[in-house]
């Protein structure tokens, strides 16, 4: 499997051929690559589509890679994105300056594909994923899983689903049958007779039709030929 699958990488380099080369190398390994020719365009794009990694050239005509690294130190969003410097400058001073400004690694031009991929993978490995806690008030969610209604009477039904429902859990059923009978409008409640393992990863549960009236109960009874 491509090791960079699902990763978005932004390449900032003014040389079109270098951008194309970097793109080819990274895309072969599964990455999604965006490339731009200037620092400002790179910053704007990264704000819009936050990449997993930025590869930046040091020598650009207007703002340089050093300018980018300086900027990155003062910006919380960019600090969290690993940045790899790409440069033809072999002098110790440039390398040291880039690293001291926070570059995660330094790749010398001309570079070999394997070396670049190695450095990119290493930088990404050290990156932790963004995560966000969801607080009370906005944490509500609804989960829908496949279900089969296996048995029915006028006040309850039995279902088979992958979920081992806890007794008392409120559920809603959406099947053609429950819709036809008008049961899907009712709030339903999982009865204590539940959580039985059936087979093939399916659990059984009995579900009570809560808030049902006698007319609907009689209608359900009549649907399978039951009398009054």
């Amino acid at each position, binding site marked *: 499997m491509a090791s960079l699958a699902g990763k978005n990488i932004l390449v900032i380099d003014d040389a079109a051929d270098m951008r194309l080369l970097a793109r080819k190398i990274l895309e072969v390994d599964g990455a999604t690559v965006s490339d731009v020719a200037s620092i400002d365009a790179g910053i704007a794009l990264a704000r819009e589509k936050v990449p997993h990694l930025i590869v930046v050239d040091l020598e650009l005509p207007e703002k340089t890679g050093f300018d980018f690294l300086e900027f990155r130190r003062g910006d919380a969003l960019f600090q969290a994105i690993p940045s790899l410097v790409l440069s033809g400058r072999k002098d110790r001073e440039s390398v040291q300056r880039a690293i001291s400004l926070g570059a995660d690694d330094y790749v010398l031009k001309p570079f070999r594909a394997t070396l670049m991929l190695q450095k990119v993978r290493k930088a990404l490995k050290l990156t932790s*994923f963004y995560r*966000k806690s969801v607080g009370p008030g906005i944490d509500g*969610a609804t989960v829908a899983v496949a279900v089969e209604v296996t048995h029915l009477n006028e006040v309850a039904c039995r279902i088979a689903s992958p979920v081992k429902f806890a007794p008392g859990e409120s*559920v809603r*059923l959406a099947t053609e*049958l429950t819709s036809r009978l008008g049961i899907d409008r*009712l709030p339903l*409640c999982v*009865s204590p007779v539940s959580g039985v393992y059936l087979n093939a990863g399916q659990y059984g549960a009995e579900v009570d039709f809560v808030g049902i009236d006698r007319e609907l109960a009689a209608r359900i009874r009549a649907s399978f030929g039951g009398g009054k």
Partner: protein
Amino acid sequence: MNQRLKPVLLAIEDDHDFRKGMEIVLERLGFRFVGVDRFEDFYECIEKFKPDLYLVDLQLGAQSGFDVIHELRHRRGLKEPILVVSGVRGTEAVAHAIELGASDFLLKPLDRTFLSAKLSRFIETDLILEHKPKFHELPRGSAGGKVEFDVKISEIDELGIRFRTSSLVPKGTVMKLRSAVLAEAGMPDGEALVAVVSSDLDPTAKVYTTYAEFDGVDVEILQRVRSWLAT
């Protein structure tokens, strides 16, 4: 039959005629029926009769049936089934009663067949068993669809969602998760297909913490989520 062997059913209902009607039906179904219309009497009867099941009307004047459910479940910690019997229609009243701990909600008017069918879900007497509705087996594959339930999201990251639920969703379960916070994160319609990776039980709280990874979600959309997470 020995009176003490009969299950005791205590009802609070301020409609005298309805109470009387319930008494006749329930005595015939093999219960010892105790019906009251005042809260003081109701709470006194709990101590006196140690009922096996409660029937609670919702509209009771000064105090509502909701207060009674709360008192029984939360203040007194009673475990016996509490069935709401009410003329109040609408899912909100039902949902609120269930949230407070009611076991079921029956809409008035009642008849013997309906009442015994409902009671048979919670308690059994010889006569109730006689009338207990049988489950009809449906032809295999004839009633497929989806079941929905609510969970609480605790965290979202680039790969998936962590949520709390009282039900066990086993590893490998594929499901659709819908929430306002996912819409805010950039998921179309606030929906995402996810596959469960782990479900860990907190035995004290009896709650599972489940982690599910995004499954088959478009890379562009995941990128939107990532940008939302980064802000």
